[in-house]
């Protein structure tokens, strides 16, 4: 049970009066040396950390021109101040995006600008002290890199880039975050965040095949490591374990089945999530992403499709080709990579999927746009596809759908509160408080339209909502997967032979 006050839900987000320092205590556990070293970082805070951190900042701003621009361009107009869910939920002024950015910017100014070197007080430049470093560690782990503030910034400053750079600097001096770094290490070791080895995955998938067969009488396959399959599905490992994630995975399989395409999962690349992005480390992001390339080559697939995972889709859509490309061995007639929602939507548009929407009549749905899908990537071949496509899938599979208010959806969507590497119980206070604006938007549609469930396309969002919904008077099972709705409503028309017969599924189309 929480030992802090749960914010009260209002009709819409109210800008709180500032409470300086109220969240200064919120710091995630520090990574132990054994989890730092496999990622290429010092085990613990190095002796000359100040010098090293300044050096790293110089390296990063030289390497990434965007970072230098973002550090220089801010005019403190204040447009971002009330846009952050963590500020709205905590009232700590250092959670105003401009102030959080300034924790790094003031150090940059001190060491890398003329005015800051000679007249620091005049330009708000400060030395990198232990106190400043502690602030970095606290507040750069109260940013989920959701980029909502960037939408409203007249200069387009990307706070996520600054948070990522700050975390990369801290990692490079031996001050890493336990949650992200331990999990990245698990991917290098086992292949996925949840630590599921090949036999466990095979066992789970076999169980799903039996389950779907019992429920539908159709032999839908959930293949693993099948060479020669057309599609490699890369999905967050939470889809093999958690609720409602696994219902989404069941749905993907039914869609592939109905499409008549052969597909496979890979035990080597059994993780879509890529926490390398959260810690701002292109090197670690690349190491994780390369597993997908290696698996695709080994299995000889022609297409790569990603399951429901927000930041994974950002990595896939925005970084995969440059990090792990070229993917010239894949079929150029399809997007590289493709989102499962794009795949399903195309089939719906072609009239190749049949649904019985009444299967979802026990629910009244709304949709939570995941930040990395909404603001850092796209879907389909038209602007705003990432907003339209998931909604069209929901409308095709459900009779009752209502959007939340404009201030909390699409490009203005609010983070679930657990993104960006914050989905850990040592950050529960910031997670719960950061969920406030989304909960307010949800309350509105629950009261006005009788919404009972919220659908999402992100493993982190789904798990975060499972945890925080009850804190705001909702229930943990009010969050569902979009492909769970597909799974409920889809009418399987292929391979409906009697038990014991061979499934006439794959390779037909």
């Amino acid at each position, binding site marked *: 049970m929480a030992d802090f006050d749960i914010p009260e839900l209002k009709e819409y987000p109210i800008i709180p009066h500032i409470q300086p320092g109220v969240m200064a205590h919120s710091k995630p556990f520090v990574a132990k040396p054994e989890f730092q070293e496999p990622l290429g970082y010092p085990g613990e805070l190095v002796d000359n950390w100040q010098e090293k951190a300044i050096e790293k900042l110089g390296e990063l701003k030289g390497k990434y021109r965007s970072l230098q621009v973002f550090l220089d361009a801010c005019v403190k107009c204040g447009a971002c101040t009330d846009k952050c869910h963590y500020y709205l939920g905590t009232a700590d002024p250092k959670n105003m995006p401009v102030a959080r950015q300034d924790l790094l910017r003031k150090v940059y100014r001190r060491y890398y600008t003329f005015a800051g070197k000679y007249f620091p007080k005049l330009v708000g430049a400060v030395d990198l002290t232990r106190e400043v470093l502690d602030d970095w560690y606290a507040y750069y782990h109260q940013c989920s890199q959701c980029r909502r503030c960037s939408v409203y910034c007249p200069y387009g400053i990307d706070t996520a880039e600054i948070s990522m750079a700050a975390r990369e600097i801290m990692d490079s001096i031996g001050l890493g975050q336990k949650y992200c770094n331990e999990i990245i290490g698990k991917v290098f070791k086992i292949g996925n965040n949840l630590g599921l*080895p090949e036999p*466990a995955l095979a066992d789970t998938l076999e169980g799903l095949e039996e389950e779907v067969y019992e429920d539908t009488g159709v032999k839908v396959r959930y293949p693993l490591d099948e060479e020669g399959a057309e599609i490699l599905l890369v999905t967050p*490992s939470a889809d093999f374990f958690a609720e409602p994630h696994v219902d989404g995975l069941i749905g993907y399989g039914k869609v592939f089945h109905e499409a008549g395409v052969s597909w496979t999962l890979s035990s080597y690349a059994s993780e879509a999530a890529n926490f390398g992005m959260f810690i701002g480390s292109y090197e670690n992001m690349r190491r994780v992403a390369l597993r997908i390339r290696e698996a695709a080559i080994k299995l000889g697939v022609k297409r790569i499709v990603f399951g429901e995972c927000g930041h994974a889709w950002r990595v896939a859509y925005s970084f995969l080709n440059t990090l792990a490309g070229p993917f010239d061995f894949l079929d150029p007639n399809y997007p590289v990579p493709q989102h499962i929602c794009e795949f399903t939507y195309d089939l719906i548009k072609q009239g190749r999927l049949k649904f019985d929407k009444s299967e979802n009549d026990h629910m009244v749905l709304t949709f939570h746009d995941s930040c990395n899908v909404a603001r850092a990537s796209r879907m389909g071949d038209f602007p705003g596809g990432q907003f339209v496509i998931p909604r069209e899938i929901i409308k095709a599979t459900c009779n009752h759908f209502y959007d939340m208010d404009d201030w909390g959806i699409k490009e203005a969507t609010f983070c679930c509160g657990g993104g960006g590497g914050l989905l*850990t119980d040592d950050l529960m206070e910031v997670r719960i408080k950061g969920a406030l604006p989304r909960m307010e938007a949800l309350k509105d549609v629950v009261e006005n339209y009788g919404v009972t469930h919220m659908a999402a396309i992100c493993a982190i969002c789904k798990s975060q909502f499972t945890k925080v919904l009850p804190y705001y008077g909702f229930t943990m099972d009010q969050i569902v997967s979009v492909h769970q709705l597909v799974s409920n409503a889809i009418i399987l028309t292929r391979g409906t032979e009697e038990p014991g017969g061979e499934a006439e599924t794959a390779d037909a189309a």
Partner: protein
Amino acid sequence: MTERLAVPRDEYGFLVDPADWNRELAQALADELGIGPLTPGHWRIIDYVREHWLKHQAIHSVQQTCRHFGLDRKCIWRLFGGPLELWKVAGLPYPGLEAYTYMENEEPDRPAAPFHAGTTARPVSPADGPAGP
């Protein structure tokens, strides 16, 4: 009580070595967690989850565990209170950080109404399997 629980456990309360586990210890752990007397309905799930871990060294989805026994998806919450309680009573070790996180996120911190109307948590029912000895 303390004597019954005199085995090494980690900071989260998981057994360090699952080989230290026995049925008496499981009952002591269940008492500590407020689960109460373990019935055959509890034991078959404990045995199943332990067997899966010993075979695969991996977590197993709650949904598939429930389904294996023909139970609805909320049986773990009704019987044990949540997936972490089941894991602890089954004497299994720390499952890894992300596995722990996902299990923890499925723990109802507000047990009054963890589930939506229609699937509201209820006391252990005959549907959960054989009652007590």
